[in-house]
């Protein structure tokens, strides 16, 4: 039995050592998409930053706007803080809340999935940002830590794949890189490209997912907290493609109603931001240039009405 324990122990030790070596020797892609988060954080943490319109969400927000239109129309600085829904809305909101200032207008467009199951606690991108910041993430709860642990293999795998891809295809440019963004934080690298097309899950309304009430309560608390610090919070439904909207009906209706019931009604009905497939680039949430422009004009119209009323 001792011989067995020794052998298994040795195998485990060798495996762990090799894994740690791989984590350190094969770091996150130098051009990786997630690196943009550091830049967005620096935009918000700048010392003499003026109050700004901050667009918050996942990649739906990164792809969703032409912030120059908003900036020019509203005469306010704009920071597109959207990057990846896979961070989980809890991380996104926690990260944002440390940078807000009095006078900021925060427009939150979360993908609906965040309010169900454990999506709010992140997926692989949370592990990416965890390792990128060398573990310096504040306020991670158990679920988020579990997410980091469980996604460590995926993090390692992605780094190895990217290393091999970079070696084999050194000239290959992807829009999902850190230099795909403009000065506002919008993704613009795809603006000159044709939409790639994407598959939609087969149509038909799906059964409603399991709501995450713990997170919903936390989210509402954080919104109130940011408001108490002088920010204006606006909940704007995420722009979504027609079939996606139809498929997600039960979830969308739930989120709409629960936010309204808690005094956080979407500033316009979710159905107002449904667009046809030709407005999207490569997924049901990622707008192309035309879609981003249309969405930006729409939000400007809404903001003007909102500020007029308030």
């Amino acid at each position, binding site marked *: *039995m001792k*011989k*067995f324990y020794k*052998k*298994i122990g040795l*195998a485990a030790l*060798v*495996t762990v050592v*090799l*894994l740690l070596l*791989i984590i350190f020797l094969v770091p996150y892609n130098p051009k990786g998409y997630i690196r943009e988060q550091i830049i967005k954080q620096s935009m918000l943490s700048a010392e003499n930053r003026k109050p700004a319109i901050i667009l918050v969400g996942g990649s739906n927000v990164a792809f969703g706007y032409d912030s120059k239109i908003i900036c020019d129309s509203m005469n306010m600085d704009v920071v597109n803080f959207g990057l990846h829904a896979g961070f989980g809305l809890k991380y996104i909101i926690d990260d944002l809340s440390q940078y807000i200032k009095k006078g900021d207008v925060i427009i939150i467009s979360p993908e609906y999935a965040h309010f169900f199951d454990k999506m709010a606690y992140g997926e692989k991108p949370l592990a990416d940002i965890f390792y990128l910041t060398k573990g310096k993430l504040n306020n991670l709860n158990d679920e988020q830590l*579990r997410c980091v*642990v*469980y*996604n460590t*293999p*995926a993090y*390692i*795998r992605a780094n*190895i*794949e990217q290393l091999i*891809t970079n070696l084999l295809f050194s000239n290959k440019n*992807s829009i999902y890189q850190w230099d795909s963004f403009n000065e506002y934080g919008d993704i613009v690298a795809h603006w000159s490209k044709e939409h*790639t*097309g*994407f*598959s*939609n*899950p*087969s149509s038909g309304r799906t059964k409603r997912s399991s709501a995450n009430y713990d997170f919903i309560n936390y989210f509402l608390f954080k919104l109130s907290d940011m408001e108490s610090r002088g920010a204006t919070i606006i909940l704007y439904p995420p722009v979504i493609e027609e079939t996606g909207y139809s498929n997600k009906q039960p979830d969308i209706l739930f989120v709409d109603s629960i936010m309204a019931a808690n005094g956080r009604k979407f500033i316009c009905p979710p159905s107002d931001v449904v667009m046809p497939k030709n407005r999207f680039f*490569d997924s049901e949430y990622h707008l192309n240039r035309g879609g981003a422009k249309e969405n930006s004009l729409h939000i400007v119209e809404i903001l003007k009405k909102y500020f007029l009323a308030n």
Partner: protein
Amino acid sequence: MLFNSLEFLIFLPLVFIGYWTLQKNLKVQNLFICLASYIFYGWWDYKFLFLIILTTFLSYISGILIDKYRQKGCVAKFVNVSNIIVNLLILCIFKYYNFFSQSLADALSAFGITVDWVTLDIILPVGISFYTFQALSYSIDVYRKEIPACKDPIAFFAFIAFFPQLVAGPIERAGNLLVQMQGKRSFEYSQAIDGCKQIAWGFFKKIVVADTAATIVDAVYSDIVYYNPTALFISAVFFSFQIYGDFSGYSDIAIGVAKLFGIRLIKNFDLPYFSRNIPEFWKRWHISLNKWFISYLYIPLGGSRKGLKRTFINTLTVFLASGLWHGANWTFVIWGLYHSILFIPNILIKSKNKIIPDATIRFKEIGGIIITFVLTTIGWIIFRSANIHEACAYIYKLFEFKNYALPNFNDVQLRTAAECIFGIIILIAIEWYNRNETETYRLAGRCSIARWIIYITLILWSFIFFKTNQTFIYFQF
């Protein structure tokens, strides 16, 4: 609890240490493994522990009563039949109630009769098909006097609940597993190391091959209209390896884990994709289930002893039952029917004219191997599809030869497909190398450094490819 989870990584060493610490007292050791197994099972949903305990209790009591009233043949028969009926009823309610009631409603509506059936919101308890069959086989074997009735309740409960094979097989016979539970086990170093190797190999098949293939397969099946025939073709082949890697991987892990506890489970897969014809495929695929159906359905119906017509019917019955066992959907039934049609030529050919492949698989038999693989892959399309309509659409699209081009996968999918193909090549290469071995794969000869490198590579590869929330396909059965 999943094998590929953090919880299991903690659970297994603790149970292993506790099990061998209690080695001196067999009853306590069996009680320990039984309780550990219930914790393993209850991790999904503790409410269903009641069901497995009930099934176990009924079968245990049946064995005792059959033995006690053996002289009164009709009483013993009554007990046996009652046990079968009650357990199958439990299985049918949980697994097939909604399917049959909805199917009947659909059939009636075709005649213009609308009914408002009550379909129940029933959750299928994990592993119910497996442990029910295992429990039934015990009472039937006792009735047939193939094994004595077990008078040790702890050993019996441990036999049914034994966690490595509880939720997805192999479906063990009492003559193998119960006997081992009743006997003393001793720790054997070589068996334990062999078990660890088999676990590593099982994880490779599950994580690197099956889960990687699943990414492509799930995407294609979610939107068959969008993907071109090439993508569908690749996806069909991938699913063949997904289900094989998933299920045989689970079996390897189960058998390997059992070896750590000094228990030998039966082989459940014997390189089925190297089969040279369909009958051989069914001797190599899900061996424990097929043996169960042969022993408890085919032979009692008369097998092949009552003429050609009866043999057809019996064969058809077994394949349909096997299809239905897999799930409450007509696709599984049609899949069973499909295989029965492929099997029929074997019945028609007279024994003296049958070409029975010998045990040694040769490269020159590659033609038969490929044809058998293609036929089973078509069957898997039916198996995987959500409904018959989808299966037909999928197969029909495969024959749109003029639309074959490069697969319309995105960059990520292309990369995943390449990784999967690489994993499949490694799998086939290793299995081909070991095709005529009877025991666990020898991944490296006698060179211990080579063995270490290969196994550590397998473990690292499996770790790096690990994905969250990936269950095993056969858990849904």
